């Protein structure tokens, strides 16, 4: 907090936020203040300076600082884009290249606002080889037109990364294909709307009282109506017939079956009536119905536009690996990596396949695959599993198993990933579809029998029943309600893969949480429990810890001096300790050195025993510290996300909560109040998967909340798998929903909103069945005139559209945070 004096003389305290990304600077370990303003980290300051240098500070024109926080930016090692020089890799991104001009499609997960669009569409100012860039905000893609002679794909990717918009260059292809199915839907909608308007125009003279039209005009109008209805039948409505046919072939009863039946009855009956000169038919109802159904389908499709969530294990791995051949390092695409290859993996890079450590010892961080927060020390000859991240220096490894056979890949080959999940909505659709088709056919036959001696009337009653029994309002209510709900949730940080997930969310009764990265966040400062050292000793320990990059050392170095349990002398905190000398660090085990003439050591109990000869005493998994003669221990726990405990308490009122963590159980006491005995620690990804399966077999409806890869199996097996992501540049794994970490606290309200969505769908079902009942009374009495149908059908469709989207918007305002 900083005190500033306002113009009117009052003093106010304002939180200092980063000029680039708008995140609070307080608490950030390497916040800095320059002449230009405050920055939360060095990375943000660098981007700011770069934009200034290129006269691009219009980027900051909006109210909220729009930048992407650079705190988590991976080490600025430009060689990670070297893969883009490899033609086979570049070919996946380049849409078109004639030598003089080329166009590439890049997926940039960091794109999130208008300023991003502004900046990225001015990329040519930074890279003169770029001719034009076009941003798609929704799909988060950038189309780059460039001159291959003047720049290269690699240079462009590097420039984007320098700006903080790192392109996601993964093994997966970027979906750059023009959305052909969407264009088709718009065309179908256009044709249906055109026909609907014109047919109505020609039908109105029939409905208006007055002098009857002469026969010639009637025939002309009827003929024109048939002409307009044909493209609706064969083009606009074709998808409904196709999906009904598919449903019949696979012997499932989707709601599309009665819809197709109703549409066919409408069109067929109208053509016959017109051909036999018995009347004008129902062509206006037919075109209108198709038009409204397509609007509902457009709603559905708009939701699917967002980037595909499904990723395989390969999207977590680097594109190319540096393989040592004849003493030279050459980048080799991942798929050409063979067992026996000797590879060099740099700091912060992920080990692509199971491998042996060749020479220097190092540290591997398995947080990504197991959730274990503490990195593991490995020495020459040890095995490193795929998915581990190399912590400090470059490591040389020998591949023992090919990528597709590694532990990581085996998890992903689990059958849970192979089958798409069955959504509750499709069950509802199948049930209603079967029920509707049965009822419609039964009633149509009954009506025909009742009118039997009069065969013409029997046929017209039967077709009329099929027409009004068409569950069109029913099929509109679910996509529109759930689509609106999914869009409104997306604006508040919960992204659903499919709107139908909202219905599954509403039925959840058990919530299982992963710990690392879910309940805790890498962005929060860890909390320290300190025993036995204080005052000057604690300062010495911190001075030594500042030299190391190990997470435990970073936590100790970054800790507030007041944390020490027995700091007595306030003056101590101000005087700083001297520089540590004679420092020896054993990666992953500990560090020792001499500070102000005292021997100081930090590390595991074995390391302390070896370094100082003293046997340390303290709880398991603590980090032990020695400063001169003083001994103590420090227990580091990653901090919970702010507010997550309250959220869990609110969830516990209506749901059973479980904690399923890959971490060890040292933090058990902290979570006991929330989860009681429902805690499992040291769970491997497979354990988590079988936990979820077992819970589902007990009849529970399980939501798994995790951070991605290490619980990917559990996410896939759960009724709803929700991945927590920090920052906009999220890695979306196989899951049903992605929640922004900052909005995890709103989860109880999101679930409440999902339950409301289910109630609205049910209400719409009731309303549309009521309309169907009214229509049926007309139909069975043989009184369904074209005019009655032309009024009843659009009215019921419009009621459903208005009711579903209106109710969801209204309850979003009441139930969701703004």
């Amino acid at each position, binding site marked *: 907090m900083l005190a500033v004096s306002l113009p009117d003389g009052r003093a106010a305290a304002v939180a200092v936020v980063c000029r680039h990304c708008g995140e609070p600077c307080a608490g950030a370990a390497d916040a800095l203040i320059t002449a230009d303003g405050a920055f939360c980290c060095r990375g943000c300051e660098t981007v700011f300076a770069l934009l200034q240098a290129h006269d691009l500070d219009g980027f900051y024109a909006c109210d909220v600082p729009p930048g992407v926080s650079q705190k988590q930016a991976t080490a600025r090692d430009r060689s990670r884009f070297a893969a883009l020089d490899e033609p086979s890799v570049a070919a996946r991104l380049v849409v078109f290249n004639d030598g003089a001009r080329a166009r590439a499609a890049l997926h940039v997960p960091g794109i999130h606002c208008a300023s991003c*669009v502004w900046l990225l*569409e001015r990329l040519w100012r930074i890279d003169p080889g770029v001719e*034009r860039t076009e941003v*798609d905000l929704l*799909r988060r893609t950038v189309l780059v*037109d460039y001159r291959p002679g003047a720049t290269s794909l690699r240079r462009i990717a590097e420039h984007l990364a320098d700006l903080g918009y790192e392109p996601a260059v993964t093994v997966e292809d970027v979906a750059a294909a023009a959305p052909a199915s969407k*264009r088709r839907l718009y065309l179908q909608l256009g044709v249906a709307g*055109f026909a609907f308007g014109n047919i109505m*125009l020609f039908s109105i003279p029939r409905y208006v009282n007055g002098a009857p039209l002469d026969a010639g005009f009637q025939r002309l109008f009827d003929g024109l109506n048939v002409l307009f209805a044909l493209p609706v039948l064969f083009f606009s409505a074709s998808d409904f017939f196709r999906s009904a046919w598919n449903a019949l072939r696979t012997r499932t009863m989707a709601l599309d079956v009665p819809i197709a039946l109703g549409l066919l009855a409408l069109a067929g009956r109208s053509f016959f009536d017109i051909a036999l000169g018995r009347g004008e038919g129902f062509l206006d109802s037919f075109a209108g119905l198709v038009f409204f159904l397509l609007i509902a389908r457009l709603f559905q499709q708009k939701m699917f536009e967002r980037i595909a969530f499904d990723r395989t294990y390969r999207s977590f791995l680097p594109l190319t690996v540096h393989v040592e051949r004849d003493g030279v390092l050459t980048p080799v695409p991942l798929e050409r990596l063979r067992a026996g290859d000797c590879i060099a993996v740099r700091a912060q890079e992920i080990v692509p396949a199971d491998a042996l450590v060749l020479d220097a010892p190092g540290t591997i961080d398995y947080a990504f695959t197991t959730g274990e927060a503490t990195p593991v020390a490995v020495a020459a000859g040890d095995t490193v599993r795929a998915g581990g991240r190399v912590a400090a220096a470059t490591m040389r490894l020998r591949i023992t198993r090919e990528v597709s056979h590694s532990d990581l890949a085996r998890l992903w080959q689990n059958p849970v990933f192979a089958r798409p999940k069955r959504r509750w909505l499709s069950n509802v659709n199948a049930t209603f579809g079967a029920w509707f088709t049965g009822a419609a056919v039964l009633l149509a036959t009954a009506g025909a029998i009742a009118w039997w001696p009069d065969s013409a009337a029997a046929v017209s009653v039967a077709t009329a029943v099929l027409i009004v029994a068409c569950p069109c309002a029913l099929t509109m209510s679910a996509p529109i309600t759930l689509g609106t709900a999914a869009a409104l949730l997306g604006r508040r940080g919960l992204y659903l893969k499919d709107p139908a997930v909202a219905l599954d969310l509403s039925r959840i009764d058990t919530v299982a949480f992963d710990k690392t990265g879910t309940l805790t966040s890498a962005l929060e400062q860890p909390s320290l429990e300190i025993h036995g050292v204080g005052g000057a000793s604690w300062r010495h320990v911190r001075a030594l810890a500042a030299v190391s990059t190990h997470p435990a050392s970073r936590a100790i170095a970054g800790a507030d001096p007041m944390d020490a349990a027995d700091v007595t002398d306030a003056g101590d905190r101000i005087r700083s300790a001297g520089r540590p000398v004679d420092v020896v660090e054993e990666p992953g085990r500990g560090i020792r050195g001499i500070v102000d003439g005292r021997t100081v050591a930090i590390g595991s109990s074995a390391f302390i025993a070896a370094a100082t000869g003293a046997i340390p005493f303290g709880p398991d998994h603590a980090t032990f510290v020695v400063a001169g003669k003083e001994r103590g221990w420090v227990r580091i726990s990653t901090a919970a996300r702010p507010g997550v405990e309250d959220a869990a308490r609110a969830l516990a009122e209506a749901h059973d909560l479980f904690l399923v963590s890959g971490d060890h159980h040292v933090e058990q006491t902290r979570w006991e109040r929330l989860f009681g005995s429902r805690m499992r620690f040291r769970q491997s990804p497979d354990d988590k998967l079988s936990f979820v399966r077992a819970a589902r077999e007990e009849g529970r409806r399980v939501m798994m909340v995790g951070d991605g890869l290490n619980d990917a199996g559990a996410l896939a097996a759960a009724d709803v798998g929700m991945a927590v992501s920090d920052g906009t540049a999220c890695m979306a794994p196989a899951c049903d929903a992605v929640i922004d970490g900052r909005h995890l606290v709103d989860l109880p309200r999101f679930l409440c909103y999902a339950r409301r969505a289910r109630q609205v769908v049910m209400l719409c079902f009731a309303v549309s069945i009521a309309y169907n009942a009214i229509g049926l009374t007309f139909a069975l009495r043989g009184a369904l005139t074209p005019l009655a149908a032309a009024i009843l059908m659009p009215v019921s469709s419009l009621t459903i559209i208005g009711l579903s989207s209106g109710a969801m918007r209204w309850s979003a305002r009441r139930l969701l945070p703004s």
Partner: protein
Amino acid sequence: MSVVVLLIVAGGLVAAGFLGAFSWAVLSGQYDDTCTPAVRVLLEEQPEISTHKGTTHVDVDR
């Protein structure tokens, strides 16, 4: 009354013209991204940008 026929033909042609224009817009990709253009127009264009060849020229030849 035969003037009605003329009106019907004229009306049909006008409507068909609009349908054709809509189809052209869809097929040329104007409906591919319905979100970004709305954001793009809100951004201030600086004078020297319009002189640059690449940015003012908005072709959608996908």
